């Protein structure tokens, strides 16, 4: 249990998708103009990461990794399909996004109205694929750890985009040098926020 909490907190603050790895920057920069839309996209990311990382964990563990097919019988134990993992992960993400969209549409029209337009954007959000690839590289021990990593990463991304959107709403009233307006200053602010987040580095729970 402690370990799960540790992974969760670490994924939010120390290994923040945006500030430590720059993943999902495209939509982060493009959609962070207002807090409201950022919240919507952020929630969608938490949601999708929370689902795709554990699903990809199972696929990696029981289909792709070296010796993962051992459950089919001893003669399959030497098969290593890990070269297919990129394709499998992206396929899972694309279909999961589709599935989630349909499920939400059916069961919660209000949530769909809020999240709906963001879901298609998410298939090409690098932080989603990044989540699965990091999960694979870091070799989590069980599905609970993978889930808590996925959710933590999503929450970290959510925090980052909402924070930058709030700052961008305020910065409209400041006198930024003309060439830096918009994109340039957002880059620099993100850098400064990244430095602030580095203060979390080395937290041991």
């Amino acid at each position, binding site marked *: 249990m402690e370990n799960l909490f540790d992974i969760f907190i670490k994924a939010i603050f120390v290994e923040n998708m945006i500030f430590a790895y720059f993943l*999902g920057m495209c939509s982060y920069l493009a959609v962070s103009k207002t807090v409201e839309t950022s919240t919507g996209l952020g929630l969608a990311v938490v949601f999708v990461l929370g689902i795709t990382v554990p699903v990809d964990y199972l696929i990696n563990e029981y289909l792709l990794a070296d010796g993962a097919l051992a459950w089919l019988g001893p003669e399959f134990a030497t098969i290593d399909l890990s*070269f297919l993992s*990129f*394709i499998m992960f992206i396929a899972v993400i694309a279909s999961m996004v589709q599935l989630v969209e349909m499920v939400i549409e059916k069961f919660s029209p209000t949530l769909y109205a809020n999240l709906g337009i963001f879901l298609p954007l998410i298939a090409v959000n690098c932080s989603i694929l*990044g989540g699965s690839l990091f999960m*694979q590289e870091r070799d989590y021990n069980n599905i609970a750890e993978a889930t808590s990593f996925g959710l933590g990463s999503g929450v970290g991304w959510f925090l980052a985009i909402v924070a930058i959107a709030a700052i961008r709403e305020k910065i409209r009233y400041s006198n930024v040098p003309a060439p830096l307006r*918009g994109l*340039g200053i957002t880059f620099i602010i993100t850098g400064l926020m990244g430095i602030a987040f580095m203060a979390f580095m080395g937290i041991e729970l």
Partner: protein
Amino acid sequence: MAETKEKEPLFSTKNKKLLSEPMVRNNPITVQVLGICSALAITVKLEPSLVMALSVVVIMGVSNVIISLLRNMIPPRIRIIVMLTVIASLVVLTDEVLEAFLYDVSKQLSVFVGLIITNCIIMGRLEAFASSNKPWPSFLDGIGNAAGYGWILIVVGFFRELFGSGEVFGYPVFEKIGLYSIGYENNGLMILPPAALFVVGIIIWVQRSRHPELVEEN
């Protein structure tokens, strides 16, 4: 198709523009805001930046040609998945080749090679250009955009390695010209992630002061 090709020279003004436009005026990173995700984290050193830039050039050129050749065959309803599959297969090939022939670099790039798949530049160009144009212009468009992305990567990598570790391609430049003996110290900030954002911010600043038409309204 062959007839139109004969009428139009390989490097017509229009085709040259496809190559040069994305360099500055329509740069994928600083103007179109695409493909930043996989780019910044590997720019600590020059070498991985260069390899990443080259990989993207190759993958983008090839995938644009493939999609352009198939453009009349791909069923529109599953086109996104087809594009993703083409890109992902090329990325896997690149990854395997790097691991076999450039092992050290592939270790440094680690998961970021995989993230080329979600590099929005590639998807963006496939959707916007290759799926409605002939192979040759598509190829040029792909190469042009990838190069526009690549040079930013290389510039960022160069400055971060130079000021962060005092080296260029691992060669200790600052040590050789004696900067350390007069009290210079490496800037530790440059090797940390936020520095990449600052360097790109500065590139945008320089670029937009030279091309005022690119300035945003806020």
